[in-house]
Each structure stands twice: as structure tokens, then as C-alpha cells.
């Protein structure tokens, strides 16, 4: 394998091919992290709503989850990028097509974020619902209101329980961000493909892209292991020590 082509001047843009790789990494990180912010906040709200016994809160949240998780991610991308501008009021649609900065980036962020939110919601819900009813009763019995019970008892334990699956979800969002290349976001996989087309160094550039993905995800794993250690409850069953 010969990686010397990376330092060669790129076909366009003034930099080297390595600069293209760096741009790809930048967009992969931006799409993934922005999408994760949406996924985590929206997913948390939906997951919590699904555990309440108020039907007009639970119902819409359930409908959201079933709708969003049952549509392929690729279709989400196309809907946000191609269909959304046609569905909103005309003036807004025109702005989305001509005036909005970085339309493919934001479409990718919303598509990935709102799709992943449906998955995060189910994990948050399972965390909350795995806590025995007795905990809620004990908290209510001391005079706490239901929102206080969520804030001080159910959520702190619920989130701790679902750190491992949430880590997987956080990793998945980095890998799923590659789907954004279909609507023209020049993230890592897209850059690798372009570089391969210009240099015919297909094997090398995809090896490099793979290594970069692995490094990013391993960094996430290390971060989440640190989080897991920090929030570990002493003496609690299931924390391992």
C-alpha cells in the first residue's frame, strides 16, 4: 500500500488529497454530533412521554416512534432534502432551495437526528420502565409530585441503566452519517469515494477511511466508559462492583 498520493495536490480546491480527508472528517463529526444533540433531546422527551399514563402525551409519542423507526434512514434523507421544500409553504420552500445555507448539511442533520430520536426514545423508555413500581410509590409517599419523582428518582436511575445501549446508538450515528453522501454532504465516505475516483487508490483510501471511523468510534467508547464509571452507583446490582 502506498499512501504517498495523500500529499499530492488535489484535483481542485488548492489543497492536497489529505486536506480532502480532513474535510470529510470535519463533516462526519459535524453531522453526527449535531444529529446526536437532536436525537438525545427529542428522544429523551419522547421516551419520557411514552412512560406517562396521560394518553394525549403518550399517544403522539408512540405514533412518532412507530412512524420514524419504521422508515429506512435513506428515505428520511431524501424526504428532508427533496420532499420537505415542496411540502412547506411556497415562500419557505423557495428559501430552503435557494437561500438556506448548507441545505444538504441541515437535511442530513435533521434526517439522522429525528430518525435516531425514535431509537433513543425506546431506550429511555425501557430504562425508566425497568425501575420497579415500588420506587415510584416510595417517592410519591414522601410527598414528591410526579414530575419531581421523574427528576430525582426515575431519570437518574433510568439513564444509568441505559448507558450501554445509548453508547451503541451514539456509535451508530457516526456510522449512519455516511448515508448523508446520498444527498451530497461531503463527509468521510463521500470524500474517500471521490479521492478513489481521482487517484485510483481505492484500496488505500478506503483503508484510511475505515481506520478513521474506528478511531472516532473507539474514542466514543472510551468516553462512554468514563461516563459509565463516573455515574456508577456503589453497591448497586448490575454495576459489576
Amino acid at each position: 500500500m502506498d499512501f504517498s498520493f495523500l500529499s499530492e495536490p488535489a484535483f481542485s480546491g488548492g489543497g492536497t488529497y489529505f486536506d480532502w480527508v480532513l474535510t470529510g472528517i470535519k463533516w462526519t463529526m459535524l453531522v453526527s454530533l449535531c444529529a446526536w444533540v437532536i436525537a438525545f433531546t427529542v428522544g429523551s422527551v419522547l421516551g419520557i412521554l411514552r412512560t406517562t399514563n396521560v394518553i394525549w402525551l403518550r399517544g403522539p409519542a408512540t405514533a412518532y416512534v412507530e412512524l420514524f423507526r419504521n422508515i429506512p434512514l435513506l428515505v428520511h434523507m431524501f424526504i428532508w432534502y427533496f420532499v420537505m421544500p415542496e411540502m412547506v409553504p411556497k415562500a419557505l420552500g423557495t428559501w430552503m432551495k435557494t437561500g438556506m445555507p448548507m441545505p444538504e448539511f441541515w437535511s442530513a442533520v435533521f434526517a439522522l437526528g429525528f430518525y435516531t430520536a425514535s431509537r433513543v426514545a425506546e431506550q429511555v423508555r425501557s430504562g425508566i420502565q425497568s425501575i420497579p413500581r415500588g420506587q415510584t410509590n416510595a417517592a410519591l409517599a414522601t410527598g414528591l409530585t410526579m414530575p419531581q419523582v421523574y427528576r430525582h428518582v426515575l431519570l437518574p436511575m433510568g439513564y444509568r441503566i441505559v448507558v450501554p445501549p445509548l453508547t451503541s446508538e451514539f456509535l451508530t450515528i457516526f456510522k449512519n452519517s455516511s448515508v448523508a453522501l446520498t444527498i451530497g454532504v461531503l463527509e468521510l465516505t463521500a470524500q474517500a469515494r471521490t479521492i478513489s475516483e481521482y487517484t485510483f487508490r481505492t484500496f488505500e483510501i478506503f483503508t484510511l477511511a475505515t481506520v478513521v471511523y474506528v478511531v472516532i468510534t473507539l474514542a466514543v467508547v472510551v468516553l462512554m466508559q468514563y461516563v459509565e464509571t463516573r455515574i456508577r452507583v456503589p453497591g448497586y446490582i448490575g454495576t459489576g462492583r
Partner: protein
Amino acid sequence: MAMIEFKNVSKWYGKFQVLKDCTTNVEKGEVIVVCGPSGSGKSTLIKCVNGLEPFQQGELMVNGQSVGSKETNLPKLRAKIGMVFQNFELFPHMSVIANLNLAQVKVLGRSEAEATEKSRALLTRVGLIDHAPKFPGQLSGGQQQRVAIARALAMDPIAMLFDEPTSALDPEMINEVLDVMVELAQEGMTMMVVTHEMGFARKVANRVIFMDRGEIVDDASKDDFFGTTRSERVQLFLSKILHH
């Protein structure tokens, strides 16, 4: 006026009736033991008192307030009534002292310092002050239950409910919990206790209520309950649990 007053309370789970026309009362300072076979509705009855279990018929007055009424502020009422559960139900992610402080600060509006002072006094009382910074998972069952009692007492309750407080404990830990409860009873706390510990009933109960299939079958003073001949159903139950 009685502290807790059940008037013909009935409750259904779907078509199945779990409480049938339950009528009884608990006066201030009284200790009432509720016993009966499993599934007889004892726990459900006691959970009605602080509104953890809703009921469909009848009336339940606690300290002059109707529990079933829509106007009643349940959190406010619950803050005045301590409850201790079979499985302790301490909050696992909080230290012992934080478990005691939580509702004092969030419900009663005490300052953190005030709450801590109160909590430390109560932990000293139940003999666990050295464990204040520990987490519930690091304590034995008996210790956890004593913390749970202290947590309930931290709210300065006007009455205490105990739902089988010793049923999940190893035999050697039962007495450390019962001792705390006996002391509480002797100080004049109003208590409603679901338990099979007839020794406890003999020692401090004013009255014993016997339940079967959702009905209050017997409601007698302690001396009558243990001293005079009771109905066949009660005799059978007692013979089963008083075998040693």
C-alpha cells in the same frame, strides 16, 4: 375525630373486587396491626390511606381530609404520612443521608443544612449514623429498612404506615427493625402495620384487624384477638403462623 377513618371502602381491579366494604378507624396514637393470608387485601388497604391505590367506593378520611376527593392535594397529604415498604425502596443512586434529605428539601422546603441536621439525628436514633455517606446497596437489608424508617420520620409524620416491613428480611435482621418500630409505638406514634409478626402485635398493638378475601373479618382489641375464641377462619390463620 379519628386520624384514619375507613367508611365502606371498596375497590375493584377490573371485575375482581379486592376490597369489600372495609370500615374501621385508627385513633391518634393507636397502633393497629393488619394481618391475614396473602392476597387478602392488606397491602391494598394500607396503600389506600395515602392514595397510592385509588378506590372506587366509600370514603376514607385522613386527618379530616377525604383521600378520594378530587380537591385533596395528595402530595401534601402524603408528606404528613410516613410509609415503609416491604422492599425498603431506598433510592439506590443516593447516599443514605441524601435519601433522608430529598423530600425534606423538595417537599417541606427545608434548607440542605436543616435537613442534614434532622437526618443525622434520626440516623443516630436508628443506630446508623456511621453509614450516612454510604449507598443503600452497601447496607444489609435490616440496615436499609431502618434507613427507610428514618427517611419517613424525617418528614415529621402524623402517622406511619408499614407494609410488611420485615417480610423481605433475613430472620436475624427482623428484630433490629422491630425494635425501632416498638420504640416508635411506645412514643405514641399513630401506626398502621401490615405484618405477620404476632410478637410485635402482642407487644404494642392496640387493635388487630384480620382480613380475608378483601373483607375485614375481625377487628378486635389485642387482648380479645389473642385471648378469646375467634372465628374459625382467624383460628386457622393463627394456627398456621403461630407454629413456633
